[in-house]
């Protein structure tokens, strides 16, 4: 009996042990309940998930000292020891935020990033560029549809927030690209030399850019080249103005690739068809070729090489502004350029090494002459040879998930020779050595900062500078962020103006940028205000005029120039509201004045428009296998000046002889792409047919005026053609890119 009783007791105690105990509580972060927290009684199946108020409750048959674990991806795990006896256990937990890359706020003042890494909706990817009507497939043209970038038709370069085209610099995988634009003649803008599809992403900064970059008073465009291609391919393109062919081969084990392309373009045929404003006595033509290889080393390093060569030529004839002297003036151009870029990237534990070197050579051979009664009357030759070497190394160390420290140095060597009719011969050499350090500091997912400093020394100037940069970002609410950026930026005087001895210094600008941004699913709204202060800008003077010469030569005089630019910008992009339609609108207000170059006083610069508005819309219609794109740009008329010299007490002084406002700029552009083989599963070729019409309404836009020597006559600087129609076919073989195209257009 005793044993029976004992057994009963044992059994009962077992049963008691199996009795359920309720465990409940509340999980909070800053006194607010947190939902979706996984509450686990360690090493058991028992636990619960908190509701939206942070409450949880579950039952367990476990007894004794146990540990309760609270986990949630956005918070740091919390462990609480508990003792389970027979009565209900109540446990509350307070969580701490876990800092992570996805939720951390990113500094975005002044910059628009186009890569897939950051979940930004203000992207401008290669596909965006190709499908922006009026951009002609050029990266820099597409950027003019973003806020802060001015449309200046007669000169190449990115005119950012009241800055000149030479105040912006373009980088490829961290290395500077000298002569990004093709050689050109005055009044006609050079084109992007680089194929848009060469780059997988870009960061465009319209101010306040990182300390890793320098020598740009206004802004920087950082292009990131593509990695290994996904497949081997052969492609060619044909249109009335160009022919090109290329291939890419991917190694069998997918750790290396190589490729090359060759192209030729000539505008002659179009010149026959269209009514050109510009009289090309020799139609613009060019040959271009490129070569690339990329490979991954066994230890995880990645090498990328890209090299190109191009040459171009054209000649332009203009009616004379000095009829008593000559009837026509003529300018002939021969240009040659080669660019090579090698970059290397490897991770060593917590360190990431990025090294790159680039070399470029550029030759521009300009021949100015005049004609009277069919006889050439004067010839001025301007031969420019430039050799540029850029070397840069950046070492980055991760501190935690969202903080990092970067440092490195950069060498920038320039060697230019200029020959101007033996009247000026110069040999300009400069070595800019820079060192920089920058840190990304993530204080929390709501607050982050970027603090950097850059120091430069120019061997030509014999001077050094130190430029601090600072940016802060703060998340106001779930979708709203605000950021602020400040920085000092230095740039050497442009070497083209250094044609005689002068005591020069760095030019300087300071940026203050404030931004508020709202990003939600498929929509993005940005508001930016900026103030930019310029100091030590270059002032030039004319070199003494020699008879027979038909161009003035300006030379750098001193650094007494100054100025400012301030403005407001709005950007709205929406991919969501209308089915299959992606559109964006940008508006920029700009107020700027500066006294620089040959300006006799502080003036509104002739490249700055007060109001710029642009809109871009794209729609792909799957049933027709066709994408339709339109864009529109409006820019308020820019000022123009006729600046001449006069003798004041034996000294040549500049003065404004004429001034006025250009008419407002308007252009409506349209393009469509048709994909005939789309969806044919077994198709071996993939074809895209493109039709584009720029300035479809034929607005007669004026870029400026040229004045005669005495100022009595003037002629308008106008685009080479008002309305231009382009048709072309791009065909790829060997690989089916259909899916690619579909997804690009979804």
């Amino acid at each position, binding site marked *: 009996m005793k044993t029976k009783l004992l*057994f009963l007791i*044992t059994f009962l105690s077992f049963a008691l042990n199996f009795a359920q105990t309720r465990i409940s509580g509340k999980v909070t972060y800053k006194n607010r309940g947190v939902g979706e927290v996984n509450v686990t009684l360690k090493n058991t199946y028992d636990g619960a*998930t908190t509701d*939206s108020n942070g409450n949880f409750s579950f039952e367990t048959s476990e007894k004794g000292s146990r540990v309760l674990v609270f986990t949630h991806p956005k918070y740091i795990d919390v462990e609480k020891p508990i003792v389970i006896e027979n009565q209900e256990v109540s446990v509350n937990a307070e969580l701490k935020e876990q800092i992570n890359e996805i939720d951390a706020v990113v500094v975005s003042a002044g910059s628009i990033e186009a890569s*897939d890494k950051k979940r930004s909706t203000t992207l401008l990817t290669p596909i965006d560029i190709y499908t922006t009507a009026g951009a002609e497939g050029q990266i820099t043209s597409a950027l003019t549809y973003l806020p802060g970038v001015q449309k200046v038709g007669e000169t190449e370069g990115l005119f950012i927030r009241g800055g000149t085209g030479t105040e912006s610099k373009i980088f490829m995988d961290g290395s500077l690209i000298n002569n990004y634009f093709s050689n050109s003649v005055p009044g006609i803008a050079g084109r992007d030399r680089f194929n848009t599809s060469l780059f997988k992403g870009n960061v465009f900064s319209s101010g306040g850019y990182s300390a890793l970059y320098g020598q740009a008073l206004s802004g920087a465009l950082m292009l990131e080249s593509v990695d290994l291609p996904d497949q081997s391919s052969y492609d060619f393109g044909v249109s009335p103005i160009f022919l090109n062919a290329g291939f890419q081969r991917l190694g069998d084990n997918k750790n290396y690739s190589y490729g090359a392309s060759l192209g030729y373009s000539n505008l002659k045929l179009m010149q026959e068809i269209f009514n050109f404003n510009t009289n090309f006595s020799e139609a613009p033509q060019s040959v271009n070729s490129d070569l690339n290889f990329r490979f991954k080393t066994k230890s995880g390093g990645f090498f990328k090489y890209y090299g190109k060569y191009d040459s171009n030529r054209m000649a332009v004839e203009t009616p004379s502004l000095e009829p008593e002297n000559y009837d026509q003036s003529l300018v002939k151009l021969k240009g040659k350029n080669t660019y090579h870029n090698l970059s290397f990237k490897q991770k060593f534990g917590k360190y990431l090494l990025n090294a790159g070197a680039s070399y470029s050579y550029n030759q521009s051979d300009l021949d100015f002459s005049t004609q009277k009664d069919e006889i050439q009357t004067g010839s001025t030759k301007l031969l420019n040879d430039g050799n540029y070497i850029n070397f840069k190394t950046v070492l980055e160390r991760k501190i935690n998930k969202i903080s990092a420290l970067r440092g490195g140095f950069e060498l920038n060597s320039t060697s230019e020779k200029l020959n101007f009719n033996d009247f000026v011969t110069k040999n300009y050499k400069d070595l800019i050595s820079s060192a920089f350090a920058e840190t990304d500091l993530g204080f929390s997912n709501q607050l982050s900062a970027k603090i950097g400093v850059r120091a430069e020394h120019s061997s030509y100037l014999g001077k050094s500078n130190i430029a601090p940069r600072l940016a802060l970002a703060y998340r106001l609410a779930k979708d709203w962020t605000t950021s602020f950026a400040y920085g000092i930026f230095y740039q050497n005087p442009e070497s083209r103006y250094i044609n005689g001895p002068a005591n020069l210094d760095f030019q300087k600008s300071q940026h203050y940028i404030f931004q508020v941004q709202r990003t939600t699913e498929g929509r993005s709204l940005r508001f930016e205000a900026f103030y930019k202060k310029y100091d030590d800008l270059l002032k030039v003077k004319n070199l003494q005029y020699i008879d027979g010469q038909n161009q003035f030569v300006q030379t750098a005089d001193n650094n007494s120039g100054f100025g400012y630019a301030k403005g407001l910008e709005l950007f709205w992009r929406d991919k969501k509201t209308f089915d299959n339609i992606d559109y964006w609108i940008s508006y920029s207000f700009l107020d700027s004045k500066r006294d620089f170059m040959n300006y006799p006083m502080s003036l509104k610069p002739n490249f700055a428009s007060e109001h710029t508005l642009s809109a871009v819309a794209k729609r792909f219609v799957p049933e027709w296998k066709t994408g339709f794109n339109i864009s529109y740009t409006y820019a308020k008329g820019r000022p123009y000046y006729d600046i001449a010299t006069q003798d004041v007490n034996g000294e040549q002084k500049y003065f404004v002889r004429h001034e006025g406002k250009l008419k407002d700029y308007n252009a409506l552009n349209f393009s469509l792409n048709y994909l005939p083989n*789309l*969806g044919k599963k077994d198709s071996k070729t993939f074809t895209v047919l493109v039709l584009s019409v720029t300035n479809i309404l034929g607005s007669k836009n004026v870029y400026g005026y040229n004045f005669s020597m005495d100022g009595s006559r003037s002629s308008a600087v106008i685009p080479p053609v008002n309305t231009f129609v382009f048709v072309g076919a791009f065909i790829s073989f060997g690989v089916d890119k*259909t*899916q690619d195209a579909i997804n690009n257009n979804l």
Partner: protein
Amino acid sequence: MKKYLLTFALSLISLTAFAQTDYEKVMSDKIAKIENCKSLDEFQTLANDFDRIGKKETKEWLPAYYAAFVYIQKGRMLMRDGKMSELSAQANIAEKYLDQAESIAGKDNAEIHLLRKMSYSLKMMENPTERYMTDGMKAMEELRKAESLDPGNPRIALIKAEDTYFTPEQFGGSKTKGMEQFKDALAKFTTYSPKSKIAPNWGKAEAEYFINGAAK
């Protein structure tokens, strides 16, 4: 006394036996809930349940597999609601669990490869333009691997059918072709027998759902 001892021993045995089947029982309970999930919260709760089981049963690959599956299903629900920007967050969590499952089950598990395919597809949908060439390609590769490992698996057939069904005709997909493939998948489901009570066995209802014309 001997008799009692025997009873005691027996009851101990039954207790341990009970403990063994406890894993299967709790898994079956939770697995049964997956198909009835109606809200994001329910998916999250279930995912956490599988996580908890996985932490205890470190030698079993199925808890991590199901946790990944639940996150993918949650992602697909978000996708249906048009919350595209949250897809890759779900997919990333799913991939973590898939890594865990693979480290236990080995690399040749077709079911895991299929979930990887679904996870990459989810990521791609967040930004098809940008991610087709990367995540889209990886998804195809995973599907190919899964198929070569287990050609008769009805779930692989089901996911292929879905891909076809939802791809517009202009791009080589088709509703009718998709339907054929669903029927194919359903046929495979009827002859398929899962390796155990708790081995992956989902998808049949989904195939039926399409065949009965419920998805329009």
